[in-house]
């Protein structure tokens, strides 16, 4: 049994008894003292693959990182973009050194999604800085700020546990501007004495921002959504849509082969089944690839409307290939089916892209969905109805 006086956390404890034993190299008594509650110092692991060196400091061994990304970093980024291990692509939260920063080096705050962290250090070749990585559960700055994980509380907590106030003589943090929806700058200052400056939206503007004495131009403050930014998001639009696409394709291929009898034959599978498969693939392409890529040029404001234009092009191509002579009723019905199914599916998939863009509001999405979702469901039902009617005519 511990005696009362030996229990950690007692506030009236004498100075030499303060139990801080998270890292053996930190002497007892070394806590982020002045800034309020005592928080044990905590440094990120130096065994992480991207740590190139260590910096011996007053608070312990700070992992050093480089602005050059290695092949491994690039492969990791690519995998994350394609959803492989994406939810666990993290770095240890805490303090890092970019190069060999001194006591006047700027402090840059980031999220512990490795893509965010890499993006930041890659933007700063030949510069030194302290990088304070917040624990955002491996989520990027923007999304984590929206959810509050990249928030005032975490900035304060991480600042205290980093021992940063012993390493820099200034009292300023530079946060990414997109973190502002989670962090109240005045609150951070009140609680820690550190002033918060919001840096540019894009990490690549950081050098210019720093050189201008931490002044961002208006362009640096605006979040744009250029072609390239939309393109890298496309894989994560496609992948979640693959499962329904596969199941529907399977359904149409199997059901397509049912003929009079009823029995199952190959010829109609190849004919009607493949036709429906192309229709689905067309809707998939229109909604998850074409719409994100060409977003600014598609007519309409609502995403569900933007998805219609490419869908109709797909429908035209399908009808052109299907409505050939001699016409039969099942064929016409099948064509009617894609006339409804393809726009409904493409519109739905296009609407899902709202979540990946920096231009939509929740109120707007709610309004769009109130109108679009019933129409999409109706379109899908009518399409399936036509297809089922065509099927019945063939089977009976």
């Amino acid at each position, binding site marked *: 049994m511990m005696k009362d006086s030996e229990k950690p956390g007692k506030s009236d404890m004498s100075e030499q008894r303060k139990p801080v034993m998270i890292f053996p190299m930190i002497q007892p008594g070394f806590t982020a003292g002045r800034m309020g509650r005592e928080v044990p110092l905590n440094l990120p692991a130096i065994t992480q693959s991207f740590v190139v060196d260590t910096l011996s400091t007053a608070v312990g061994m700070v992992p050093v990182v480089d602005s050059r990304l290695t092949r491994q970093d690039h492969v990791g980024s690519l995998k994350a973009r394609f959803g492989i291990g994406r939810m666990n692509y993290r770095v240890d939260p805490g303090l890092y050194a970019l190069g060999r920063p001194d006591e006047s080096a700027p402090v840059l705050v980031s999220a512990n999604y490795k893509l965010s962290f890499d993006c930041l250090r890659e933007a700063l070749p030949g510069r030194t800085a302290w990088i304070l990585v917040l624990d955002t559960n*491996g989520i990027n700055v923007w999304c984590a700020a*929206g959810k509050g994980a990249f928030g005032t509380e975490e900035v304060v907590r991480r600042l205290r546990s980093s021992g940063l106030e012993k390493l820099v003589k200034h009292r300023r943090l530079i946060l990414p501007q997109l973190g502002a929806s989670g962090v109240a700058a005045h609150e951070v200052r009140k609680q820690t004495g550190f002033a918060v400056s919001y840096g540019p939206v894009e990490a690549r503007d950081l050098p210019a921002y720093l050189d201008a004495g931490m002044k961002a131009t208006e362009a640096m403050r605006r979040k744009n959504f250029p072609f390239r930014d939309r393109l890298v998001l496309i894989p994560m639009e496609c992948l979640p849509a693959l499962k329904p696409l596969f199941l529907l394709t399977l359904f149409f291929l199997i059901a397509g082969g049912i003929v009079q009898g009823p029995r199952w034959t190959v010829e109609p599978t190849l004919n009607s089944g493949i036709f429906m498969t192309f229709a689905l693939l067309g809707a998939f392409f229109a909604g998850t690839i074409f719409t994100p890529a060409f977003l600014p040029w598609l007519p309409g*404001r*609502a995403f569900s409307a933007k998805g219609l234009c490419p869908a109709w092009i797909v429908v035209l191509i399908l009808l052109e290939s299907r409505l050939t002579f001699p016409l039969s009723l099942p064929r016409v019905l099948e064509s009617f089916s894609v006339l409804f199914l393809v726009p409904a599916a493409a519109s739905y998939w296009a609407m899902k892209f709202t*979540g*990946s863009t920096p231009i939509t509001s929740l109120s707007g999405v709610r309004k769009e969905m109130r109108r679009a979702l019933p129409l999409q469901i109706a379109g899908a039902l009518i399409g399936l109805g036509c297809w089922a009617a065509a099927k019945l005519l063939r089977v009976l």
Partner: protein
Amino acid sequence: METLMYLDNVVTLRLDEEKCIGCGMCLEVCPRTVLSLEKGRARISNRDACIECGACSRNCPVDAFAVGTGPGCATAVINSMLGRRGECCCSLDDGDEKGGGSSSCCC
């Protein structure tokens, strides 16, 4: 480059210009240039560009803003309608979720 615009007349952003002290913090954090500073006071000059991220409201030292924030994400709205919430970032927390920051993303 012209700003990509979403729907008109839906945004919930409100500014109490009486409260404003003209510090300009909201202009600094807004990623969509929704606000401007006129005669020492902030003004909503491009309301429809607002994406309800809440950065202005969060960083306003005098609480002059009111905005219903949340992800402008159809998947999140669908997940909420289906009752899926909590373990996924693609859900809306309407204030009844505890913690709020303990989500892991799946979208």
